[in-house]
């Protein structure tokens, strides 16, 4: 038996949806259902009587459009996988405009302690849709996986939106920032979900996705309209195919491990 998998998330689920429509991803189509809602709409979701529901009409409409029903029946799935949902590398951009710890010396910022920086990372991550969904879905007792937003495409460095990354790189603190981000992300989400990192083969550097994956990304709308060229955050079907394969390998591997030993419980979550 293979697990029935529910993907849930924000606009970043569009790349995976494209992958399912691609011959390379179609193999998974029968056991995957994808529910998405743009922005932070799914923060309105709760679980009641075995269903993930929202009192937001627009969100219900999005769930119906993407997954075929206005709510998600928890028992219809064996595994949940959260996609994107605001876990993005630049989530501390505004914070680091004002303050920075000693290990990330940025000119003109108020000094803060490493302890406070840990706290701020954690608090900022708690505000994400992913945290809402992970803590919510964790209560179902079913395995929960999480793959955050893709790293921005490297081309962002040549545009205004890349100011944050340029600042880190010019100060020589990008590796330290990345270390901090990964540590905070793992520490906060670890108890609720198994984190799936972005496959290394898709990265140009540890901070950036290879440029080719951002060409032809689509909006999470009925017409799957293309993002503008200056969208360096959303990825295309090629990216989706590679990520989907990675996710499915991990989920199926875990599932097989657990069911081979017959303890009925997924070990890694």
């Amino acid at each position, binding site marked *: 038996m293979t697990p029935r998998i529910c993907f849930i998330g924000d606009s970043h689920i569009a790349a995976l949806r494209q992958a399912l429509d691609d011959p390379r991803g179609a193999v998974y189509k029968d056991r995957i259902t994808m529910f998405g809602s743009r922005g932070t709409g799914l923060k309105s979701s709760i679980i009641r009587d075995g269903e993930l529901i929202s009192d937001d009409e627009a969100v219900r409409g999005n769930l119906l459009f993407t997954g075929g029903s206005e709510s998600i029946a928890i028992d219809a799935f064996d595994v949940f996988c959260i996609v994107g949902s605001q876990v993005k590398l630049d989530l501390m951009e505004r914070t680091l405009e*004002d303050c920075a710890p000693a290990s990330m010396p940025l000119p003109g910022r108020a000094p803060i*302690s490493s302890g406070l920086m840990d706290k701020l990372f954690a*608090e900022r991550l708690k505000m994400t849709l992913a945290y809402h969904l992970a803590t919510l879905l964790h209560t179902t007792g079913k395995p929960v996986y999480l793959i955050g937003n893709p790293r921005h495409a490297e081309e962002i460095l040549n545009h205004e939106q890349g100011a944050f990354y340029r600042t880190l790189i010019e100060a020589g603190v990008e590796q330290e920032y990345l270390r901090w981000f990964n540590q905070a992300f793992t520490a906060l989400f670890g108890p609720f979900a198994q984190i799936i990192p972005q496959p290394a083969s898709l990265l140009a550097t540890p901070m950036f996705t290879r440029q080719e994956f951002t060409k032809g990304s689509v909006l999470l709308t009925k017409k799957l309209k293309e993002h503008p060229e200056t969208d360096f955050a959303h990825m295309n079907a090629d990216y989706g195919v590679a990520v989907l394969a990675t996710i499915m390998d991990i989920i199926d591997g875990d599932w097989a491990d657990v069911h081979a030993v017959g303890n009925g419980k997924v070990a890694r979550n």
Partner: protein
Amino acid sequence: MDTPYSNLPPSRYWRSGVAEADPARLEDLYAKKFEIGPDDVIATAGSCFAQHVARHMRARNFKIVDTEQLPDWVPPAVAKEYGYQLYSARYGNIYTIRQLRQLLADSLTGTVRGEDVWEKDGRYYDALRPSVEPDGLDSAEEVLEHRRYHLGRVKLMFEKTDVLIITLGLTEAWQRLDTGTVYPTAPGVIAGQFDDTKFGFVNFDFFEIYNDLVAIRETLLAIKPNIRFLLTVSPVPLTATASGDHILIASTRSKSILRTVCATLKDKFDNIDYFPSFEIITSPGAKSGFYESNLRSVKEEGVDAVMGIFFSSHRPSGAVDKPQADRPAKKRKKRRVEVTDEDVVCEDALLEAFQK
């Protein structure tokens, strides 16, 4: 025949002024000496009761300066845990006037002292504000760097301030014997180690506190010629005393000296006023009802009574009748936060943990 005590208003008689009066609405208790206008920049400092003053004034749109802020998305509970949003800069509780005088002098000269870094379990603390970093810092050098930045922000705060509200808390303190530097906590309470060859107990008297406040006034007048001072005395009794006296004697000594200094300064200087927080909470008419069951912490209704009387006199245009929210600065988004005494950061409460 009339006497000087005939035909006085009800507030001049104990029976009508206190015994039969509503303790939360004492009439004619406070006559302000000066206005606090809508454009006046207000700074607050003092013992932990002062946090209530700052919080209520912010909530009523008074222009409370805050020169050390975190990004506006940070939850207030986290900010307060790290000493933000409590006062007008991140100096924590200032229990004695000597401490305030010292902070003012250090901020104007940019003075930091290596001996004011205390260590505990491999972490390093600013002994002059040890509670602002609950887990300390990574190195002594980092503490000094943070302190340099902090002093710059404190200097900026003083330069901006039109009205400085000081809540006088204690007369007792611990100081370094060689430099006279005064600390908000005894060595060993939060960090550091007590060594009686280095540290000594001091219990400031009337003259010392009076002179310190006069010196603070003169220094700030040189920076801001129109600065005004509003003094209050914290109604929160001492948690513990190192004076050798019974705690009741020690607390009464402390509060009465502080109160007398305030009265003397108010009478002497036009730009110094006194607001009777202490009297409102400790009035026999309140029958200790404004205190929690520990007879020390002030209940929220006690704080409301104090601030209600304050706001009945000080209502600049732009101020609002009812609190807007608990928010640290004008640019912050409104947040509704339930406030309890637990939300007030008070190092001296730690002393109770040391009681055997």
